[in-house]
């Protein structure tokens, strides 16, 4: 029985009055990957916040190397050998990769910066994880994925006793995830303790040794991964039985829907595909493959250079979200916080924003009926907490996604385009979101799901396309539509690795 590197002893943490953590005690052993599992808002990030000095416990103790310690800031945590990849992006956009990698531990000589050593350190940190991102690039010029890689590299440098990763793979695809796991396995061999937060069942089995399930801030159980089945995990997490995460959607394609004819634009070259009404079609590929670009083209967020996009057989017209919405296309952006939600306006206003015309007469809004409509939609989507007047920022990831999703139900759209619909969404909420997507398809809309989450593509969609380097490299349906058959196509061309 080895001494835990770190441990929590009956920690409580409340924000204002509401407890985010209640009496949680967990040991984190050396050389083991400890998975934290729980719904959005269960308290996972809060818990690691305590370990990495972002928050302090209201009650209870944090043990580091066996003795009670107060960690009053992230810098202290790092000095104690705790390094963290936080859930939300933690790079300074205006600074270079190099400066971001050495931020807070700049090499100094007589109080002055040593830029050479700084660069050396940064290069070394990136090489360590086999990344080829330029250390002198501005963080703001990196794709979200590359930013994530830099954050991981930052956490891995130095001599960490405890490495914490809060949903590191949310923006990574399988291939990059594999590279990360390889590193984690090396570290496990070196006897480093690791905390790993994820919503992806597969990853728990793939990398996890132990798993602790949190529900409403309380620890439900800590157990060896080998000792629990996925179904058990989900039940423990949600506290209710979730029979199937992925709904069974009857495949009844009808005429019309969305069609791309030799479309080029942005990073996309000459793409042709179609999504029939009543169909759910998946679009996947590596991060940066351009699959997201396809969604942007649909919605007019990026301009079509050549080719044509048709909806129900007629051209969609000018590239403007406003006009595309009028033509019956709706797009659910991948980055909810940045592109989806108005953080300072109520959930209700966010839902009705795209279709205010519905409640407009003589130029004035009928706020009563608008309010009712929005509340009903959010209730149908099981928004939790069921409070349409709260600000989106007070909801957890999954529920934020439900608010964005709500827009699709304010009026009937012909085409729904989802970009990474379940990134960082817990399994419970995910099932509800899939359910909603199914309803859309059944109501006779064409649904395009752009996702890096292979299981999602495989299980949810009737047909799927794989995008690589801005081109469609394969179409799959029926039996062929399996992870094994899809994955090779991701690397259709000799790919420039990201990690």
């Amino acid at each position, binding site marked *: 029985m080895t001494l835990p590197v770190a441990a929590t002893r009956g920690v409580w943490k409340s924000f204002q009055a509401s407890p985010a953590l209640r009496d949680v005690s967990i040991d984190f052993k050396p050389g083991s990957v400890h998975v934290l599992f729980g719904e959005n808002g269960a308290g996972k990030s809060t818990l690691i916040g305590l370990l990495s000095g972002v928050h302090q416990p209201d009650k209870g103790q944090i043990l580091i190397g066996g003795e009670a310690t107060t960690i009053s800031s992230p810098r202290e945590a790092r000095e104690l050998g705790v390094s963290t990849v936080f859930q939300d992006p933690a790079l300074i956009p205006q600074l270079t990769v190099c400066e971001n990698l050495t931020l807070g531990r700049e090499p100094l000589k007589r109080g002055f910066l040593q830029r050479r050593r700084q660069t050396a350190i940064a290069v070394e940190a990136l090489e360590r994880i086999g990344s080829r991102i330029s250390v002198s690039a501005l963080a703001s010029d990196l794709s979200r994925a590359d930013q994530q890689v830099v954050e991981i590299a930052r956490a891995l440098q130095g001599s960490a006793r405890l490495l914490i990763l809060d949903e590191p793979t949310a923006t990574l695809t399988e291939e990059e995830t594999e590279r990360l796991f390889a590193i984690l396995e090396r570290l496990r061999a070196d006897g480093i303790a690791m905390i790993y937060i994820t919503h992806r069942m597969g990853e728990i089995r793939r990398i996890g040794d132990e798993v602790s399930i949190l529900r409403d801030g309380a620890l439900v159980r800590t157990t060896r991964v080998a000792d629990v089945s996925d179904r058990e995990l989900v039940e423990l997490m949600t506290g209710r039985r979730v029979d199937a995460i992925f709904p069974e959607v009857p495949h009844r394609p009808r005429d019309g829907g969305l069609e791309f004819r030799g479309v080029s634009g942005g990073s996309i070259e000459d793409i042709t595909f179609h999504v029939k009404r009543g169909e759910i079609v998946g679009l996947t590929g590596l991060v940066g493959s351009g699959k997201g670009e396809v969604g942007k083209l649909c919605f007019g967020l990026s301009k079509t250079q050549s080719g044509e996009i048709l909806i129900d057989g007629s051209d969609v017209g000018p590239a403007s979200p406003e006009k595309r919405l009028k033509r019956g296309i709706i797009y659910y952006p991948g980055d909810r916080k940045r592109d989806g939600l108005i953080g300072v306006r109520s959930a209700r206003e966010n839902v009705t924003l795209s279709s205010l015309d519905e409640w407009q007469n003589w130029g004035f809004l009928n706020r009563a009926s608008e309010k009712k409509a929005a509340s009903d939609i959010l209730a149908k989507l099981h928004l939790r907490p069921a409070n349409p*007047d709260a600000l989106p920022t007070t909801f957890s990831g999954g529920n934020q996604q439900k608010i964005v999703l709500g827009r699709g139900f304010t009026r009937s759209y012909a085409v729904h385009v989802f970009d990474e619909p379940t990134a960082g969404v817990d399994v419970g909420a995910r099932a509800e979101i899939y359910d909603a997507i199914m309803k859309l398809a059944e109501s006779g809309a064409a649904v395009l799901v752009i996702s890096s989450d292979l299981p999602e593509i495989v299980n949810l969609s009737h047909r799927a396309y794989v995008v690589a380097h801005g081109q469609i490299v394969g179409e799959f349906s029926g039996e062929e539509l399996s992870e094994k058959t899809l994955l090779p196509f991701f690397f259709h061309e000799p790919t420039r690795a990201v990690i």
Partner: protein
Amino acid sequence: MTEHTAKVVALPHGQPIHHATSHSQQAGSDFSTFFRRQFINYGILPLLLVALILTFAIIEPRFLSYANVMNVTRQVSYLGIIVVAQMLYLVTANYDLSNGATVALSSIGCALVMAATAGGDPATSIALGCLAALGVSLFIGIVNGVLIAVVKVSSFMVTLGMASAAVGVALLVTGGVPVYGLPPEFSRYFGEYAVFGVPFPAIVFGIVVGAAYVLLNWTKIGRHAFAVGGNERAAFQSGVNVRRTLLCMCISGSVLAGLVGLLLTARMSTGEANVGVEFPMQSIIACVIGGIALSGGEGRVSGAVMGALFIVLLSNGMDLIRVQSYVQDILLGGLLVLAIIVDKLRTRVRLRQVAAPQAA
């Protein structure tokens, strides 16, 4: 204002408690929660205003005399309209540092036209003058709007540049001397006239407030304005026509400033190039104290009104209780900071409310 009374408090993971209802249940029973709710919705400002009024009234009863109430009403009308105008900019996360210059230039424009046509029928002369004032401000609004919405340059710099240019023009066309010789009817009706004891500017102010409230809360464009101010990217991707929204708000904001130029010209019966220098900062202060975030997307017209009232009451009251003017500056500075600090407190309490309904 429906949306305020309709604020709700929610259990962490459960049914919301509806304020409106809980209100009716408790209003009589539990005052402290009632006050807390007011505090959450409107912040410290109402309390601060009450405190001010009481203090002044006790020290100097004349503070509440009919004459002074009328006087304050008139004063708050001019600043109030400017504050609302500033709010229309701020809601979309843009500054208007040119509203003072807009007031000045439209005052000059209006006065020049009226003076030129003063010979003929006063009615037409006044009408032309008003058109001139609004025309000038409309033009400024369009230029600001296009630069902010289309060219997408920082409103701070745009409106600052506009301010400098507009004042320059005002001085150039007048040669630095006020424009007089306006038809006396103008200042009689638009400046001093009062209906049932309500000064004309106050009536205009009332109309402006009403219009702004409806625009921001009951129309599509208003909603879009809040959305754009809150998160422009997201608003755009939700199908909001960002350009049109920004243009609309900038133009209406500047035209309101022009309206003030008109009213002030009537009040002074002169076109002045120096009038309104203090408006940009004063209006921003009033807005911020009124809970309108500089970061955009938030704010209530009621807040803007109270903010304006605060500034006017403060200086009027301090004048009445004979606070020497050097000290007035110091007090003003202090109260500003205080008000903002307490406002921070408010947002804290609000979060707690949302989190812990058992308190309610």
